[in-house]
């Protein structure tokens, strides 16, 4: 016969759950509904719980790198934290590229990786790798869960760290014993870590100084970065721009901050950006950077960058201040608050003359670069005209996902935006293979929006296996393959800076239509201009995924270009 104590003890035990279940409950508690993953030995207890856990939708990818980029795409399109679930060893190391990509592009992501049991750690056990050691330099936080009691706290802390302040990736290395052992589960929330200040407090003095500089500026120029979207400050940014009549250029990640046709929007900054904002960076008297980090692709040669200007830097991350460009006023804090505070002190101004002075550069770029790209005199299609036609067909309302290379720069230049959170691309890391899985992630984040992926023949093949995920999930990714039979960006550099030595950049391609048909994905190949619109319409009117293969000019170049090591205003408009 059982004693009363024994019965009580059993009752207590019955509410105890395994670490694996605690993980699922914790994720659910934090609002996670979608995870991207791939099972394996060291994460099997978690997958066993997942088997009976319909609250969380698990997307089976075909490679762990795909899981990370899909989670990144999900996070960027939704504003939520992207979550990956992978096994130990190679499963875990396959996530490294995606983690570093998320780190440099400030994308909130949690990677949960299985790990061998605590007792086997350091024994060179099967599929053991020191994931925390490997990922510490490329994460906001990397933590090994060695006991089931830790799970709720670790997930709560991971969630808080990934999402707050300047977002970024977090790794949870989950030992097998901690997955199996039982623990008392209590929903846990973390919103305070004493050494971590996600959002510096605004300093009145800096707000006043920034406002004074802007009020006294004759030729101000704003650089709009992703930070504006990350803090949901689009309205504040618009009010700021309008009140002081400020022209702005966008970083790659900042392209959808305000609609492309906003009168103050002067286009993209940087190496392949638009001529006007790049030239005017070295003409303005006050340069106002908002939520951007003066990446070298934006600044060009630092020693000649905006030397004539007073520089104001709005950022949430103190480590970005004076990192590469010395600034006169640093406005630390969440730009949703800091922009509003500065705007309140701004005089209603107009800068008609200054705004007008952009026009000659806009016209020059139109004549020398944009018109020839959109209306080429070649028989073959140009990359720009394909992108432009797709953008028109979706009324500039789609989510643009790009891979990396010429397809990326061309899409950034010729795709237009009317809604926020509309550009998903690998900026800082430049990860080829990002596009296809990121686009899958975006379709789960925003099933209400069209997701257009522009990719090259190189990048598409870098995570080609994810066609399997698209097939299984019927993920409605509109894949626009700009096929030039080259690793185009490297080829362009070889042509420009390496005496046309096309060293291993020409590429033999498979028949992509046959390939996608094996995955049940409908497709269309376009080689002629007259068929382009019809093919795009077919793509957009087809439910689910579609491959549009556009065979484009083989040796097409992305122009204009600031050659590496040149000043921001020294853009090449044509290659003779």
């Amino acid at each position: 016969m059982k004693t009363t104590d024994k019965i009580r003890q059993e009752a207590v035990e019955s509410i105890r759950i395994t670490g694996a279940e605690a993980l699922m409950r914790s994720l659910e508690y934090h609002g996670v509904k979608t995870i991207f993953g791939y099972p394996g030995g060291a994460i099997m207890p978690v997958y066993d719980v997942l088997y009976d856990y319909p609250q969380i939708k698990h997307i089976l990818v075909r490679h762990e790198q795909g899981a990370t980029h899909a989670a990144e795409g999900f996070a960027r399109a939704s504003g939520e934290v992207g979550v990956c679930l992978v096994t130990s060893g190679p499963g875990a190391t396959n996530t490294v590229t995606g983690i570093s990509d998320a780190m440099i592009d400030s994308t909130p992501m949690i990677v949960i990786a299985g790990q061998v049991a605590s007792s086997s750690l350091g024994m060179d056990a099967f599929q053991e790798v020191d994931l925390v050691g490997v990922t510490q330099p490329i994460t906001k936080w990397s933590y090994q869960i060695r006991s089931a009691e830790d799970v709720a706290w670790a997930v709560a802390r991971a969630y808080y760290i990934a999402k707050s302040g300047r977002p970024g990736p977090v790794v949870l290395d989950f030992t097998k014993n901690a997955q199996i052992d039982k623990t008392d589960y209590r929903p846990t929330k973390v919103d305070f870590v004493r050494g971590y200040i996600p959002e510096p407090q605004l300093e009145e003095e800096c707000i006043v100084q920034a406002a004074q500089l802007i009020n006294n500026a004759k030729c101000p120029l704003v650089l709009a970065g992703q930070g504006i979207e990350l803090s949901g400050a689009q309205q504040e940014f618009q009010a700021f721009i309008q009140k002081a009549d400020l022209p702005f250029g966008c970083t790659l990640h900042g392209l959808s901050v305000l609609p492309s046709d906003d009168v103050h929007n002067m286009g993209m900054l940087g190496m392949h950006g638009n001529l006007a904002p790049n030239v005017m960076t070295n003409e303005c008297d006050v340069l106002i950077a908002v939520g951007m980090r003066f990446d070298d692709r934006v600044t060009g040669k630092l020693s000649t960058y905006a030397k004539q200007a007073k520089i104001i830097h709005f950022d949430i991350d103190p480590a970005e201040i004076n990192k590469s460009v010395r600034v006169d006023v640093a406005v630390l804090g969440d730009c949703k608050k800091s922009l509003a505070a500065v705007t309140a002190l701004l005089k209603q101004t107009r800068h008609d003359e200054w705004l007008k002075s952009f026009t000659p550069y806009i016209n020059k770029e139109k004549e020398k670069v944009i018109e020839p790209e959109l209306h080429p005199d070649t028989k073959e299609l140009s990359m720009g005209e394909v992108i432009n036609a797709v953008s028109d067909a979706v009324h500039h309302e789609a989510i643009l996902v790009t891979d990396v290379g010429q397809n990326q720069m061309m899409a950034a230049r010729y795709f237009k935006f009317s809604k926020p959170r509309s550009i998903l691309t690998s900026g800082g890391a430049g990860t080829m293979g990002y596009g296809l899985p990121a686009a899958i992630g975006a379709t789960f984040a925003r099933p209400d929006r069209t997701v257009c992926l522009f990719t090259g023949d190189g990048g598409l093949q870098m995570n080609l296996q994810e066609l399997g995920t698209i097939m299984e999930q019927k993920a409605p990714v509109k894949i626009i393959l700009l096929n030039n039979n080259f690793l185009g960006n490297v080829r362009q550099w070889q042509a420009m800076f390496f005496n046309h030595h096309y060293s291993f950049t020409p590429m033999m391609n498979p028949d992509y239509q046959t390939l996608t048909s094996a995955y049940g994905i409908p497709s269309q190949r376009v080689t002629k201009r007259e068929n382009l619109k019809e093919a795009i319409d077919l793509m957009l009117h087809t439910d689910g995924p579609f491959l549009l293969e556009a065979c484009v000019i083989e040796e097409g170049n992305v122009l204009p270009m600031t050659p590496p090591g040149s000043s921001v205003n020294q853009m090449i408009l044509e290659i003779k």
Partner: protein
Amino acid sequence: MDIKLYTLIVHSENFAGLLSQVTAVFTRQQLNIESLNVSASSIPGLHKYTITTYTDEETIAKVAKQIEKKIDVISANYFTDEQLFSYEVALYKLSMPEFLSDHAVLHIISQYNANLVEVNSVFSILVKSGTSEDITALYEELQKYKVVLQFVRSGRIAVTTSCYEKVSEFLEMREKQYCTRKIR
């Protein structure tokens, strides 16, 4: 660029793996660490790192910010020698026959205020605390007599000469923020 010796004082939570995160920042900035001392600090639960490196102010400022950015680092501040009172300890193992063969060695030891803590027929052990320069000077003096078998010096330890205790103030501020956050 004015290159000089900077001392970076870091306080962090006592979590495994933080030391490598701190030193990794130096590696990325291509800086050599001259000395490194890590120990429990006077504040319960916090570890204190005292790191010296030769660099310019712009670089050390970046390093400090990059280190402070680590989630469980509480603070990272850099100082020049003028802003610190710093000390080191060194041990010198001396060969007894050489030691005894010349009275000058004993004279040097007393001149430098070093203490003999072990003496036997084979070797003796000398302890010296003081500035880095003093410790080096004593070593060089002893070397002239070919008496040194082993020599080791601790990393620099240092306290600031400012009246403000930055870390304590930071923690107080965070404590207040935590409490107001709870009330809200």
